[in-house]
Every structure is written in C-alpha cells, then in structure tokens.
C-alpha cells in the first residue's frame, strides 16, 4: 500500500484549494490548504509535506517569499508557483528561489494532476541531489504533457457531447412535468394535513 502524498496549497482564495482537493483526492494525494504564507510556514514547521503549491500574489507574504523560505529550510521539498497573467518578473524571481515548476492560471484539472505527479521526488530523476543547486526549468508551464489516457477520455467526451446534449433536451419536458407534479402533490398533501 502506498501512503498518501501530502500537498500543501497556499492561496488566499479558498476556491483554489478546493479545486486541488477535488482533482487530487482519491488519486493518492491529501490536499491541505493554507490561506497565507505565514499559515503555510506554520503548517510546514509542524508536519512533513511532499509538495507545496503557492499562489504568488497574497496579502502579507508573497508566494516567492514562501518559496524562498521553504528552500532555505527544506531544500528537497518541491515548490510549484501558481502564477497569474504576464508576470515574467515574478517568474525570474521565483526561478531564483529554486521552484520546481510554474503553473499558469487558469488551471485545468489535468494541469493540476500532471504537475502534482511530475514534482514528486520519485518522478524527478536526480532531483533530490540537485534540488538546491539547479532549479528545474519551467517544464510544466504553460502546457501539459501529452497522455494517451487523457486524450482518449477527452475525445470520447467530445464525441459523446452532442448525444448527451440531446438526451438533456429530450428529458427536459419530462423533468419539468415531474417537478410540477411533485410540487402539486406536496401542496395537496399539505392541504390534507391542514384539514
């Protein structure tokens, strides 16, 4: 049995942590969230994690600073920076801090899953030895590695889409009538009770 990989997601927007959780839970990861840099460092001090994903722009400590501090205390821990739009200066700074990868928003489920998979130490040959000296290039940003399974699923859904759509359209009147009937039944039942 493999143990869960623990991933710390640092973002002031709780939605981001939630989407990581939705994508990664059940796939061998446990997602823990922190709302700002300080909270993240506190959590890191108390527990061991397998990877950190951090937003850049946050109130208080920036993601770059989080990355820099993690790198001084735990140089082996991969830090992935989640960047917004056109922030090349930020990227240069982050690269200097030695981050493992960049993810550019908006994030797709594949981007999240593939990057989580890619930064795990066992999937990065030689990474442990070189983590301090040479940061990994931003190999993950902005695209995603091509995978047969993902491709097949995407194409399957694509060609299924119009038929699922038609099924929705055809089902709509029945669902509408069903809901009306249910409402009517409830109203009647209430009246019976009131009598």
């Amino acid at each position, binding site marked *: 049995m493999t143990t869960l990989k623990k991933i710390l997601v640092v973002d002031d927007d709780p*939605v981001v942590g*939630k989407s990581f959780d939705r994508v990664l839970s059940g796939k061998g990861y446990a997602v823990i969230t922190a709302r700002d840099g300080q909270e993240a460092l506190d959590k890191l001090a108390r527990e061991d994690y397998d990877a950190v994903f951090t937003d850049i722009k946050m109130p208080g400590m920036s993601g770059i600073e989080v990355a820099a501090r993690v790198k001084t205390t735990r140089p082996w821990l991969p830090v992935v920076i989640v960047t917004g739009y056109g922030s090349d200066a930020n990227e240069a700074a982050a690269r200097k801090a030695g981050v493992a990868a960049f993810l550019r928003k908006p994030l*797709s489920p594949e981007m999240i899953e593939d990057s989580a998979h890619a930064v795990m130490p066992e999937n990065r040959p030689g990474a442990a030895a070189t983590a301090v000296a040479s940061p990994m290039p931003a190999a993950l940003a902005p695209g*995603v590695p091509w995978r047969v399974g993902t491709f097949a699923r*995407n194409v399957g859904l694509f*060609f299924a889409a119009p*038929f*699922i*759509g038609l099924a929705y359209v055809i089902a*709509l009147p029945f669902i509408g009538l069903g809901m009306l009937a249910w409402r009517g039944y409830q109203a009647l039942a209430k009246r019976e009770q009131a009598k």
Partner: protein
Amino acid sequence: MHKLYVHPLPVRIWHWINALGFIALILSGVQIRYSDILAVLPFGLAVQLHNAIGFALIGNYFIWLLFYLFTDKIKVYHPDLNPARYYRDSLRQAAFYGYGIFKGRPNPHHVSVYRKFNALQSITYQIIMILLVPLQFYTGLLLWDVNGFAGSIELFGGVRMVSTVHVLLFIFFSAFIFIHPYLASLGHTPTAHFKAMITGYEEVEEEPVKDVAR
C-alpha cells in the same frame, strides 16, 4: 476589466470562413431549390458554386476539429455530466436571456478559458458542431454524387431521406444564422463578442475565475 484569450487563431479563421461560406451556401441552395421562381444565378452556376463552397467548408471544418481534438481546449466542448447542475445553469441562463437582461441583471455565466460557453451555448455548439454540421456535410456529399454513393444512400434510407435531412438542416441553419448573431450581441456591449471572435480576447469584468477544476 482585463482580457482573456478565449478564441485561438485557428478557431477564428475557421469561424469566419465558415460563416461566410454558410451564407453563400444558403443563398445558392435557395437558388437551386427554387430555380423555378428565382433567377438570380443560372441553375448550373448555382450548383457549381454550392458544390465548390461545400467542399471548401468541409476542408475548413477540419481546422476546427483538429484544433479542438489535439489541444486541451477540447474541454469547452465537453458535456456537463451532472444533470442537476446542467439544468440549473441552463434555466438560469434562459431566465437571464428572457428576463434578467432586460432588467440589467448580471449574466450568470462567468467566462474562463476552459469554460468560455454558458450552459445553453455549450449544448447548442456541441450539437451543431459535432452532429448537425457533419450531418449536413455528409448528406450534401451524398447528394453531390448520387450514383457514386448509391450504397451509402441506401444505408441512409434512400435519396429522399438524404434530401429531406439536408433540407431540414438547411432550414435549421437559416434560422441559426439570425439567432446566433443576435445572441452573440448580448455581451456587456453589443459588439463585445464580435470583437472577441476577431481578436481572440474577451473582456472580462471581474477577477478571473481562478479555477475550472470544478
């Protein structure tokens, strides 16, 4: 207000060639069908034009298809597999188009790169692009060479069937050509979506929707 790159170049090229082509196909098709009461073009020329544009658009369609098949943008053409959410989003969107928009209510859909279409758009575009457009091309191709494709026409249910499907879809697309630009004019300004379909960038009011991984 910031900009989001929602319509990549291949999609824009495909779309505008396709739009012009569809208009030309509708017009030449009307001329072919009603050559007894309409004589803008000679019948033979109308047929030649209709065939040529038809083949051009079939080729053009593959720009669209291959682009979506081989990029992760394919997600914008994925169905919502959660019926409850699908119906809720559609009803909200329909209520917005039918009522809320006249009251100045905000659009319930928020554009992001992997969810650029609202629930109603996504279902119509899926049905049109992955089912109806190919069906129109296929029936058109069969009618182009009735003898050569005799076998396929038999499978389809006879030439009458093929022709009927082709004409019914023609009626549908003729209506679509009016409704679709109307709906496309309902952005935050009337020309917003048109500009987006030309430049690729949609202007988004609020902070970007951070995730699409719902």
